[in-house]
């Protein structure tokens, strides 16, 4: 079985379309989506419609999705994020809002689980470093946990001595999933990468080979930037896409 793991689409349909085209060519069995389908980007309705139309996708809710349906405390959102959340809410039809509000915050399979933030705070916590990863390894319900939220691809691994390390992970550097080890894996972001590389990011998880590989997919960034500006969304949301920051 080969699964694609994606996250943080953030209303960037141009990026999502490129990623789905790649997935289609790769003979993928199912897509695991770690949340934040909307927020920031200019085409939330098209993104929700596309996700809903896919047969082989399993999605969880992200903090921006939750904010758009009006239930997340947005006091921690910066002003650009908040502007985008309110704009997105107005652009989505009621069926899409209902779809987002009924997404679960955690799902999983035989040996993995996935959620947006972290096992101990599924919506809001960022796992940037080893200390946050260490604390969250204690809350893992399965050996592998896919997360999103930080928009940066990373793999944390805990060995049998409970030592946690962050592994080098880039396209071409596949990582073997070892028996008895535990993993927290972030595929990066489809619609707003923040690791210095503006290309969309995703992971292919080969369950037979027990291996994960990171893929970066270029898309028409200028097109999304123009759509952001045409929509009257904050300029920074457009400029950051080119930087991958």
């Amino acid at each position, binding site marked *: 079985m080969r699964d694609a793991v994606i996250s943080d689409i953030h209303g960037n349909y141009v990026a999502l379309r490129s990623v789905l085209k790649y997935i289609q060519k790769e003979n993928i069995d199912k897509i695991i989506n770690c949340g934040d389908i909307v927020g920031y980007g200019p085409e939330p309705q098209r993104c929700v419609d596309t996700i809903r139309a896919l047969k082989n996708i399993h999605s969880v809710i992200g903090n921006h999705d*939750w904010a758009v349906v009006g239930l997340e405390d947005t006091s921690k959102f910066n002003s650009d994020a908040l502007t985008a959340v309110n704009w997105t809410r107005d652009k989505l039809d009621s069926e899409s809002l209902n779809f987002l*509000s*009924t997404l*679960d915050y*955690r*799902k*999983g*399979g035989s040996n993995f689980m996935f959620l947006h933030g972290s096992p101990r705070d599924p919506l809001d916590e960022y796992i940037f470093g080893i200390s946050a990863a260490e604390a969250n390894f204690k809350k893992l319900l399965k050996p592998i946990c896919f997360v999103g939220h930080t928009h940066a691809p990373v793999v944390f691994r805990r060995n049998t001595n409970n030592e946690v390390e962050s592994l080098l992970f880039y396209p071409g550097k596949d990582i073997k999933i070892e028996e008895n080890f535990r993993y927290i894996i972030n595929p990066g972001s489809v619609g707003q990468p923040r690791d210095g590389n503006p290309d969309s990011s995703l992971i292919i998880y080969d369950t037979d080979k027990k291996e994960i590989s990171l893929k970066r997919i270029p898309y028409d960034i200028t097109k999304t930037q123009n759509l952001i500006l045409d929509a009257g969304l904050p300029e920074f949301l457009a400029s950051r896409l080119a930087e991958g920051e």
Partner: protein
Amino acid sequence: MSKFKLSDIIAGRWRVMASAQEGGMSEVYRCKDMKKNSTVALRILKKDANLQRFKHEATILKRLDHPNILNLYDFNDKGNDVYQIEEYLDGMPLRESLGGKNNFNLVKTADIVCQLLEGINYLHSEGVIHQDIKPDNIFILPDGTVKIIDFGLARDSRAEDVPWQTDLGVHGTPQYMAPERLDGYPSFSSDIYAAGLVLYEMLTRLNPFDIKNHTEALKKQRYYVPSPPSKINPMVPPELDRVVLKALEKKPSKRFNTAREFKIRLNSASQQPVRTKNIKWEFIVILILLAVFWIILFNLVKVLAA
């Protein structure tokens, strides 16, 4: 369309005595056990319903035996029909009586929850976490006996997972789920928390958390502290407030250690006087006595002065 009609005989033993009642995944028939000459309920699984869940429920129920737990007599999964033969329950779920306009009765409330806690205590002693304690799953018989029903979500603490829940999704009723259950770490204490919410609802006719789905529950069950029931219903004694709020502590270690301990504290708290109510009556009686005394004194002075 019902599978069986009146007077049909199932497996050569159970005669259908009443037409089917529809449940979510099953149809229930009142039947006569012709071998034992007794009344039973035959719960037959609907086509396309979750067979694994039905089997799992039967496996757990089969080894339980307690007056406050639904009795399972037999289970069949051979042939075309999958069914459970259960104790026939006459009465109504607690949910229905909460919806009515019955007067609040503290003694009755305490009695129902004490029986519920006895049932939970037994389940825990058998290593079973019910995981779906709520008014819909508490059945009240006409003589007042409480029966805990629906073990589809129950977890045998000796097994790693509930076998039919392979998706790791969040299963359960969000309004009654303890914070640790939402994290994926259910414990015996999660049933105590849910029983605390049932008690809260019986005392106030309100669930303290306005929750529509699991994600909302994740926030509210973790962080919202409910107001004491007496703020909503002044008939609730202050000691009972403390009992309810202890059962609803966010951390399992701060709740009652066992359902039995919860029951003992509930029993004692429900026998405490409701101070505000008594003070009001005492105050009125004192006022009347003062008025009578004043009239007597006034007349006496008038007589003496004359």
